[in-house]
C-alpha cells in the first residue's frame, strides 16, 4: 500500500508518493532447524508483525512462541550490531578485526594452557547452515574437542 503524502487536492485527485507503507514478505523462521514459513508484515521498511504461512509445507500455518515473535528482534534496540568487549563493568564497541584478533589470542591462550577440551562452542539458530558447519569445524578440527552444541538441537 502506498501511503498518501499530503492531502487530497481541491479537485479531489489523490497525490501519491512511491513509498510502500505496508507490504508482506515471505521468509523462513530463523530460530531453529524446523524452518517454519513466516510472512512478515513490513511497514515503512520495518517488520512489525509475523503471520504464519498457511501454504508452507513444513509448518502449515503453525508457529511456536519464537516464530510468532520473530519480527521483534530485527529492529530491537538491544540487538548486537557490532562486537563488544568487556572493559571493567561495561561493554565497549571494537572493530571486527580487533575482535577477531582478541578472540584468537585469548582462545589460543586457553587452548595452550588447558587443552582444547577447556573450550566449548555454542552456536545459534540464527546463523546459516554453512556458518554452523564452519563453527563446528572450528571447534572440532581447530580445538580438537566435541564440546559443540546448538540452541536448536532440540
Amino acid at each position: 500500500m502506498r501511503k498518501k503524502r499530503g492531502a487530497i487536492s481541491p479537485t479531489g485527485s489523490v497525490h501519491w508518493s512511491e513509498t510502500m507503507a505496508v507490504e508482506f514478505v515471505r521468509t523462513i523462521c530463523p530460530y531453529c532447524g524446523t524452518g517454519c514459513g513466516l510472512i512478515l508484515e513490513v511497514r515503512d521498511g520495518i517488520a512489525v508483525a509475523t503471520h504464519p504461512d498457511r501454504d508452507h509445507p513444513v509448518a502449515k500455518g503453525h508457529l511456536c512462541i519464537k516464530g510468532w515473535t520473530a519480527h521483534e528482534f530485527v529492529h530491537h534496540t538491544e540487538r548486537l550490531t557490532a562486537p563488544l568487549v568487556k572493559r571493567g563493568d561495561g561493554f565497549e564497541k571494537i572493530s571486527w578485526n580487533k575482535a577477531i584478533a582478541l578472540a584468537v589470542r585469548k582462545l589460543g591462550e586457553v587452548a595452550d594452557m588447558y587443552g582444547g577440551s577447556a573450550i566449548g562452542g555454542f552456536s545459534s539458530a540464527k546463523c546459516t547452515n554453512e556458518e554452523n558447519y564452519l563453527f563446528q569445524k572450528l571447534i572440532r578440527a581447530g580445538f580438537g574437542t566435541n564440546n559443540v552444541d546448538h540452541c536448536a538441537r532440540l
Partner: protein
Amino acid sequence: MREERSPMLEEVKRLAKTALQEQRVEGVLGLKKDVGNVIQPHIFERSDDLDALVLEPKWLFAKLAMKILRVSDTGYRLAVVCRGCDERAIVELVKRNQIAENSIMTIGIACGDAQAAACLCERPYPENIAAGEKKQGVDPFNDERVRQFLVGDTSERVARWLRVLRRCIKCYGCRNSCPICICEPCKLEDDTWVPKGVIPAEMMCFHLIRAFHLSDTCVACGACQDACPVGIPLLNLQLSMRRTLTEKFCYEAGIDRERKSPILRNFFDEEEKGRDIPDWVSSLE
C-alpha cells in the same frame, strides 16, 4: 488452482476492479498468487494487478485491515475480500471502535460446503454476499468432535480437556491469530494473571481468561484452533457461551451492527428469555 476459473472469483475480481476504478476505495485487501505459486496477503491498488487475486486458502483479514487503516492516512478506504467469519469480525471491530465504519468496504464471499464442514461453521456466509451461493451451515453441537468435549459424562470430559490442554506450548498463536483480540498489551502477558515460566500454560489462567475475554465477541472463525500448533480444539471453549447468548438474548457477535453485547447491559434494557425479574423489582423502578 481449481478456484482460479470459478465464477465466484471472476465476480470478486470484477467488483474489486469497479470499486478501484470508481475510486470508491483506494485499496483492496486480498490474497495474491505471486511467482512460484506463493500465496500471501496483498493490497491491490491498481486494477490490473487484480488478475493475481485468489480466494483460497481461508485467511482472516479483519485485524490486518485494522492495522493497515491505522497506519494509513485519514480518508484511506479499504475493500476487504472476506468470508462470513471475517465479515463478522470486521463488524465486531467496528463496534469496538477499532475501524472507522466508512473506511472499510466488504466484498463478501460465501464459503462452500466443504469449507463449512471443515470449520463446523454455523453461518458460512457473510450478511452481504457479493459472490458465491449461500450454503447451509453446520450445527457444531451435532458433531462428535465437539460433543465429546461439551456434552456427556463429566469425568470423561475432564480427562479429555486435560489431555488436550496439557499439550499447550504457550505460543500465544491463539491470541495472535484471533481477529478480535486487540488489546495491547494483553492481560495474558501479565505475570499477575498468567504466571510466567510455566509450560504447559497454567490451564485455567491462560485458557479460561482468553476464552472468557472473547465470550461475547467470538465470531467462531476458528482461527485460534487453525493456528494452534498442537491441535487444541480451542473453538470448543467458545461454543457453549455463544450458544447461551443466542438462546437467551438472541444475540450473536458480528451480526447486529448496533446492539451492544447483552452482558454489558442491564435487565431492563435487554430482554432475556427464561429470567423472571421479581415483581417487586419492577415496582422499585
